[in-house]
């Protein structure tokens, strides 16, 4: 079990958490836990129930989608300070849309999605900071998806 101070200390290092008021940081700490994952370790599978949103502190987490006859396609890697599993915070999703596993030994923070959602609902000031951040992540992820979709390196006459 991780020490709460260590956890809080790690949270404070994340730039966007610095925008949180002290009491909000406390709330966040209550919902979060540190987790170490070994290279190759599976965090969740596509279709799993969503429970946590994650922030990478160290290492690299891969998001894969399994395509029949093609196997696992790695669609995105999450580097330190980036977020994954963010759709678990939205009210509509209930299943993981991609699988996640550690590419190298990694340290991540998991935040209880349900608690986070409830807290945002109860305290809109807190919720605003969180949602603004999620919006930023989603828009960046959309851009990446678009550029991948465009297949910009495709050989024109292939």
């Amino acid at each position, binding site marked *: 079990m991780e020490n709460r101070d260590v956890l809080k200390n790690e949270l404070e290092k994340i730039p966007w958490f610095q925008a949180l008021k002290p009491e909000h940081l406390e709330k966040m700490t209550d919902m979060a836990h540190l987790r170490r994952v070994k290279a190759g370790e599976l965090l969740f599978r596509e279709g799993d129930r969503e429970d946590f949103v994650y922030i990478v502190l160290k290492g690299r987490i891969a998001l*894969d989608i399994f395509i029949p006859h093609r196997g696992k396609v790695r669609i*995105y890697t999450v580097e330190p300070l980036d977020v994954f599993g963010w759709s678990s915070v939205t009210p509509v999703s209930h299943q993981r849309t991609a699988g996640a596993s550690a590419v190298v030994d990694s340290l991540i923070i998991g935040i209880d999605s349900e608690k986070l959602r409830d807290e945002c609902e109860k305290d809109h000031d807190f919720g605003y900071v969180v949602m603004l951040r999620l919006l930023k992540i989603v828009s960046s992820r959309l851009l990446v998806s678009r550029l991948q979709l465009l297949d910009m390196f495709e050989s024109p006459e292939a």
Partner: protein
Amino acid sequence: MTTTATPIQNDISNPGILLRPKWAEVTEITPEADGIATYWLRFINSSDQQEFHFNPGQFNMLYLPGFGEAAISISSDPQDHEKLGHTIRFVGNVTRAVSRLKVGDVVGLRGPFGSCWPMSELEGKDVFIACGGIGLPPLRPAIYKIMRNREKYGKVTLLYGARTSSDLMFPREYEVWRKAQIDVEVTVDRGDANWSGRVGVVPMWFYHFRIDPRKTAVLTCGPEIMIRFVIFEAMARRVPVESIYVSLERNMKCGQGSCGHCQMGPYFICREGPVFRFDELQSFFNVEEF
């Protein structure tokens, strides 16, 4: 009738021959990725070899008799006067014919043409190279130049992306570059279970680096769509447009600002380009189909 007019003197003694190439032999072929290879060339005439000098970012017109010419950027070390590398993707009429060449075959060369990466202006600065796909070959001479004069440059970063891991150019060299204190970061559009590197696209990784806009120059080359977002990310980090350099590609036939094909606005890309400082292009860079 007193006199006839004075005969007209012919004052053009040697009119020269337009587009006349020099001949070079293929000395080595290095496959780089699927449909891409580096052709190492050596001029047949040794004085041509000695006289040939180029700056990083410049290109040659490579001629295959019967097929035509293609503009190919030079991808080798500008200090190496023994051989000249052209990294070629087989996509057009000429380059597909190139793919059938063997060691010992002869091709025509004209060049070098065009502008170059501003290597001396970059001295004392941090250099952030963001490129994708076959946008790396035109930047490799700049990397060599930096390596040979590493102390003259600040922090040097290469952020490079390709479609898949097997499309990455020059993977064997990344370690050499890293040893020369160049931070090489590689990303692919799509990975597989064996790929342990990054998956994403070049522009999104900007967030991962600390870029000091006051002393960083950004060099970019690759698909135009990637270039657009690289510039977007650089500008979002307040890198001034005067510190962003772009290498562009257009259809080229002459290399001398004459045939007209490569025009983009007021520029002949073969002459004023291919390397531009972004403020020179900014007013029309996002105009569709311009």
